[in-house]
């Protein structure tokens, strides 16, 4: 990994047309501005990771979900029947 030291107001240029600027450093947080062409996807890593994990959970629970959702008519009671 390339590691660079930057001060607030200073930037990094990636390729021809992506500019990453350190805007402010305060209380253990860094505010970053990103200028990129509109076809470049920029995500907070943890948001993308949440979606990735949820896809894995959806695939893992697919069979159970299929059983529960395809066999349950709308009028069936939600509570288990008393014996």
């Amino acid at each position, binding site marked *: 990994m390339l590691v660079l030291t930057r001060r607030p107001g200073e930037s990094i240029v990636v390729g021809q047309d992506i500019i990453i600027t350190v805007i402010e450093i305060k209380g253990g947080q860094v505010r970053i501005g990103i200028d990129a062409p*509109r*076809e*470049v*996807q*920029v*995500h*907070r890593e943890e*948001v*993308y990771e*949440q*979606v*990735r*994990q*949820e*896809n*894995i*959970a*959806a*695939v893992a*629970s*697919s069979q*159970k*979900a*299929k059983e*529960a*959702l*395809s066999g*349950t008519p*709308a009028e*069936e*009671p*939600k509570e288990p029947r008393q014996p």
Partner: protein
Amino acid sequence: MSQPTDDNLEEKVVHFTDGLPGFPDLERFVVIELRENGAFQQLQSIDDPSISMIVCVPWLFFPDYAPILSDAEEHELELESASDAIVFVPVSFDAETRQASLNLLGPFVVNSRTRRGRQVVLTGSEYSVRAPIDLVSG
């Protein structure tokens, strides 16, 4: 109604050219109805038959759902009109609590003209990846 043929199957294939988060190599999927006129469908990988997930149209459960696509996503999907977009979301099911939930943060958007789709990550929105749904009302 004729028997399904390979041609019909091919017509229904959706191409996720970037794969899905967590499944980057799976590009071709079909959408199969779980039951006729039901709320839920199965998004089935063609590249790996062992991979599928249940999906549904989010507005059945969340009428106010309003995902906003970035310019980048619209550009990637070549969406010229909102009416060309088909939107559905992943369904997870917790077998212990028997609670089903929808991933509203990562909807699938398919361009119905081109049959190309993407899973859109709604960065900056407040939507949950596990919005619980009531199966009785579904």
